[in-house]
């Protein structure tokens, strides 16, 4: 600032100088008193110094803030950087932590204090459901005239979304993407806090009939489903419908006992026949007991009753009995296990003319002989649902290899003898791989 401009500025007022500090408005007034002007000049000099100090301080603080901002951006967190960003963050400084609401953990979500990466938007991701995708690729070699399979097929990609809904319920969605299109395999809410030992599920779900019907494809011990399931449950050997499921623990001093009753729309593939007002009923009683720390026995009885489309008033009734024996020594649980299982199903079905009573079962055994290897066998026997004299039988040998918990490679030799007096010898192989956070399955 020049002395001349200074004098003019004095006339304009000290405040303006302090704030603007520039040659501004034209001078108008002349100083009447020299002494007063001197005093003012001195005062002004003091103010200038103060202003400079303030400028200096703020400049420094601003610079340090900018530096910190740059540093924070530099350690771009994975929460925002998304999986595509392959490079590791340059500075592995510990991010500040924030407490996570405990409610998120039920679905296998995060618990405890988590690294927190800055903005509010990333916090909301904590409430996103656990997402997992499982791919299932199947190849078939060999000849089957009755029920041929494609040489190679990407049978399904299953996407799972699982989370706690609120303090009273959780929800599970499983969508199946297959060459036939997209299907909601399951999508249901489970009310976990009902009184009286009750558990209520509502939505679309697999009917709790026996064991194999409730199992997702990726937890099966085989590439295919047992013949009896394929022929009696319809569709891909599994029935899933919109409905309600209520189950109750029946407490007793001796063993675990669980009774469940379910109603379904009855419009699924299995109990087909879209008749208005007709429902499919499924009931199941399951008993379980630990025989020792490493062995247990799991038995169940199931019944299903629903309309079919073979006749106007036609119905299908299934009665099933299943038993599973498991051996898994606790100390060597990751290396050894044995599972022996059978399911027997009686099928009474109204046909266009008359009624057929048929029967089918499978027996299977799986033995884990090393940390990554499981060998299995299965025998199938099934009378065709429309005619008890037509019998299909099958024999399978299975070998499964687990590179890790998240992938699996499997081969299966299957010899099927069909009622048409033809025999099919097939070799099936399967690659299954899973990414994301897939919730644990029910035992």
């Amino acid at each position, binding site marked *: 600032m020049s002395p001349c401009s200074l004098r003019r500025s004095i006339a304009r007022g000290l405040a303006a100088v302090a704030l603007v500090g520039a040659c501004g408005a034209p001078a108008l007034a002349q100083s009447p008193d020299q002494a007063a002007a001197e005093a003012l000049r001195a005062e002004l000099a003091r103010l200038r110094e103060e202003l400079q100090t303030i400028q200096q301080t703020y400049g420094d603080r601003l610079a340090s803030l900018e530096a910190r901002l740059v540093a924070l951006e530099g350690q771009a967190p994975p929460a925002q950087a998304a999986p595509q960003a392959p490079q590791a963050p340059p500075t592995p400084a510990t991010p500040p932590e924030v*407490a996570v609401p405990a409610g998120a953990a*039920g679905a296998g979500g995060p618990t405890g204090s988590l690294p927190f990466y800055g903005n509010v938007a990333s916090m909301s991701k904590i409430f996103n459901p656990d997402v997992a995708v499982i791919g299932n690729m199947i190849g078939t070699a060999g000849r089957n005239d009755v029920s041929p399979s494609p040489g190679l097929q990407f049978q399904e990609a299953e996407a799972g979304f699982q989370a*706690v809904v609120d303090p009273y319920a959780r929800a599970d969605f499983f969508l199946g993407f297959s060459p036939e299109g997209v299907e909601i395999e399951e999508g249901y809410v489970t009310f976990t*806090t009902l009184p009286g030992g009750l558990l209520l599920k509502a939505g679309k779900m697999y009917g709790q009939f026996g064991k194999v019907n409730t199992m997702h494809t990726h937890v099966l011990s085989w590439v295919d489903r047992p013949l009896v399931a394929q022929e009696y449950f319809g569709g891909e050997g599994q029935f899933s419908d919109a409905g309600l499921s209520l189950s109750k623990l029946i407490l007793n001093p001796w063993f675990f*006992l669980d009774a469940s009753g379910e109603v379904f729309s009855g419009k699924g593939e299995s109990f087909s026949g879209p008749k208005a007002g007709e429902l499919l009923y499924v*009931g199941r009683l399951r008993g379980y007991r630990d025989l020792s720390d490493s062995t247990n026995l799991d038995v169940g009885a199931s019944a299903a009753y629903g309309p079919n489309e073979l006749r106007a008033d036609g119905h299908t009734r299934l009665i099933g009995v299943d038993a599973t024996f498991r051996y898994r020594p606790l100390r060597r649980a990751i290396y050894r296990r044995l599972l022996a299982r059978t399911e027997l199903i009686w099928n*009474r079905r109204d046909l266009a003319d008359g009624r057929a009573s048929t029967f089918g079962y499978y027996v299977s055994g799986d033995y884990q002989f090393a940390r990554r290897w499981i060998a299995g066998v299965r025998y199938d026997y099934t009378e065709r649902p429309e005619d008890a004299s037509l019998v299909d039988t099958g024999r399978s040998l299975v070998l499964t290899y687990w590179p*890790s918990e998240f992938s699996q490679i499997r081969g299966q030799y299957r010899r099927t003898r069909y009622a048409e007096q033809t025999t099919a010898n097939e070799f099936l192989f399967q690659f299954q791989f899973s990414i994301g956070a897939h919730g*644990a399955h*029910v035992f």
Partner: protein
Amino acid sequence: MPRLHRVGTILVAAAAVLAWSAPDARAALKVVTTTEDLAALTREIGGDKVAVEALARGYQDPHFVEAKPSFILKLHAADLLVVVGRELEIGWLPPLITQSRNARIQVGAEGYLDASLTARILEIPTGQITRAMGDVHPLGNPHYWLGSDNGRRVAKAVQEKLAALTGSDAAYFAARYADFDRRLTEAERRWQSLMEPYAGVKVVTYHRSWPNFAEEFKLDVVGYVEPKPGIPPSPAHTLGLIQDMKRQAVKIILVEPYFDLKTPNAIARETGARVLVMLPSVGGEKQVATYFDLFDYDLQLLVSAIKETGAK
């Protein structure tokens, strides 16, 4: 369908009889813990005012526990569930909680205690983590109970939770905590002086179960038998480890009781090291019944092995 109806009637009748014959008796506060370590700590605080039961056994790999229906029964009756947390039980506990039909112990409810929330957690991964790193725990190493100060912290959390749940017995639990704290401080002094001459001793462990333990007792963990967490040993990794151990003169291999000893024994033969089956949990052996026993047992085993092999 007469036959079906008869079956249905029998089932319903059986169910009704069983439902009637099951009185839901409730006296002492029922606590279920996922591991025996948490059960031992809860017993220290709860005394005779609580009945404590653990789901997994101490000699079992806590990552891979079967979600048996018999556990559902235990959870159904529980007033309090104490879990290790940090996703240790993620493979088996969530469906059990869902099926427990017990509102008291649902995640976030009053009777659910994640013991890791007040513990000091090590190895919290920073930066990008993928499963190419093996079965990595994104929320940090869950084997934190093997640091005795975390035992103290868990006991404190249990004390506060029990006090909140019962109200009337708060002073009892506080007194028991004070007593536990005093005994633990004494024991820590004893353990430290036992281990002091061997500070910095080099060891190899099978799984990453021991970071808190190694920190407390100044063990230098130079390698792992597993190439990556949860991935079984591979020949290439084992050869590399053998060379490392020879170069650094590592004489101790710590193995959890649930792992196969074949590879550790082979490494030991090559390197002249000693394989120690160290217990990561209370209940790993019959005589290890309390939290104090666990450290006594492990440290005794370790010290005698160090002396015999001349590792330090």
